[in-house]
């Protein structure tokens, strides 16, 4: 897609997104707030796994850290929610970078195992530090009200704030990905030895990517604490990390739009599955997952890209005049 077409599409989508509160309110709107939050979280994971090729099965941990930083700041020190978000981001950046350094030695399956173990440990650790985290019962917070006496419900205000932060984070990410840094990340993913021989400091980039990735997901976590006004250890179990992974694969690895699409999927498809079958909703969800992977193995964004290539570019023919199908560059194995 050309740069201009992409920007125009983005503007259209953003305008439509901002107008949503006019059409829906309450729970429905809240679900879209959650979609925005998930989109930021997925963007974080996608930067690490999709663009940089480092598998993480533990991003729920950063989400939890961000959420609890925000919750503790609001609960213990009555800090206004607005400040908690950037603080969560910065702290998660540091934590992610610190995790990224030793993780440099691990690749593929082994990194996945390490992050998986971390994700598993998170609820236990959160319960252990009861004094700060409120233990198993968690922390109850209060929903922010619209400032300056604006005539907005809490849900509407939350939605607009979240949406704005989402747009900002995505624009930053898009710029990052299209820059030299972004290209370096992809080079490292595809062949880090070759990248290094071209002068790319693979180790520094990989650790930094971990940090930025953690920051994004941490900010999403912080937003979720503000939006839901409640944090508890069991909501940050390994299943959350798996959900994020599902989100980026379904949405499309290495794709900006993919994160929005993936967020919509993980927010709404479980509900649809429940509508279809009360008795075994997750079985339906599982069938959806498998079906999606058959039809769109490169995610929704990948499938759309293929359609675009087929529609726009002229067909390449072999010697005999028959069409030879174009191929998508595959993300790393």
């Amino acid at each position, binding site marked *: 897609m050309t740069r201009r077409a992409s920007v125009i599409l983005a503007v259209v989508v953003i305008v439509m997104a901002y107008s949503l509160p006019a059409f829906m309110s309450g729970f429905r709107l809240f679900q879209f707030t959650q979609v925005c939050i998930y989109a930021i979280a997925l963007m974080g994971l996608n930067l690490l796994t999709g663009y940089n090729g480092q598998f993480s099965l533990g991003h729920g941990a950063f989400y939890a850290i961000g959420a609890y930083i925000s919750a503790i700041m609001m609960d213990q020190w009555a800090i206004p929610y607005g400040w908690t978000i950037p603080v969560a981001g910065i702290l998660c950046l540091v934590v992610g970078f610190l995790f990224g350094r030793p993780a440099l030695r691990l690749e593929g399956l082994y990194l996945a195992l390490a992050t998986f173990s971390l994700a598993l440990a998170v609820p236990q650790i959160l319960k252990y530090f009861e004094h700060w985290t409120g233990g198993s019962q968690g922390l109850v917070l209060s929903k922010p009200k619209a400032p300056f006496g604006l005539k907005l419900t809490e849900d509407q205000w939350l939605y607009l704030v979240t949406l704005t932060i989402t747009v900002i984070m995505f624009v930053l990410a898009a710029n990052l990905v299209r820059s030299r840094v972004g290209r370096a990340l992809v080079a490292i993913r595809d062949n880090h030895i070759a990248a290094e021989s071209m002068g790319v400091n693979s180790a520094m980039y990989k650790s930094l990517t971990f940090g930025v990735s953690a920051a994004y997901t941490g900010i999403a976590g912080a937003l979720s604490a503000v939006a839901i006004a409640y944090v508890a250890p069991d909501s940050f179990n390994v299943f959350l990390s798996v959900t994020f992974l599902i989100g980026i694969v379904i949405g499309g690895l290495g794709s900006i739009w993919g994160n929005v699409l993936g967020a919509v999927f993980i927010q709404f498809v479980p509900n649809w599955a429940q509508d279809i079958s009360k008795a075994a909703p997750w079985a339906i969800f599982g069938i959806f997952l498998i079906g999606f992977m058959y039809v769109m193995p490169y995610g929704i964004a990948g499938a759309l890209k293929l359609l675009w290539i087929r529609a726009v570019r002229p067909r390449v023919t072999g*010697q*005999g005049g028959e069409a030879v199908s174009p191929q998508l560059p595959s993300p790393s194995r």
Partner: protein
Amino acid sequence: MGAILEVEKLEAFYGRTQALHGVSFAMEEGGITTVLGANGAGKTTTLRAISAMVRTRGSIRFAGEPIQGKSTEGIVAMGIAHVPEGRGTFVDLTVEENLRIGMYARRDKRHAGRDMERVLELFPILRQRRRQHAGTLSGGEQQMLAVARALMLGPRLLLLDEPSLGLAPLVVQEIFRILRLINEESRVSILLVEQNASLALDLADHVFLLETGRVVLAGTSDVLRRDDSIRRSYLGY
């Protein structure tokens, strides 16, 4: 003796890239043909096309039967043994296990034992290293093992991809001597891809030369060896 292999207007593709542009040749049963050419000319691709390891168009007939469209495993079962570039040794299995795998697809299992004996006679070093892991063998020994493994199939056609690659000249000579022996004994047809043109011309009776996926020269090796101008311009010596 009919034609063991007939290839007509063969095209081969790696994804969108076309590597062979209409290659045609034929081999008599019991003959040794060598395919020569520079790097990237399409020599390895030709062998891969016969073994159905790449996408192809055109016609390939083995002992009269069309084989394009068949699976690799099916083609092997018909009696074509392919020793790939780099030998393809099962490095984590023992020498003996490598040989046993060679006979997995063999049609005529009754004489497998006899062939195993013959192969160990031809390559005594393999008998010596029977229980060793194949990965511990030297390059030359692995090449012998690869040829031996291919022979365990009891093939009618043997495809060899650059057997001399990375091997000392004496070792290569020995291997080529054994190839000639096998050819004379069991009438196994051999299609040999080689960079080392002079050695290949010594062994083979027919030759064809590939250049960017096309046959540019074909004939008997005698003629090619004697024609100085052809030799110099195409074979560089």
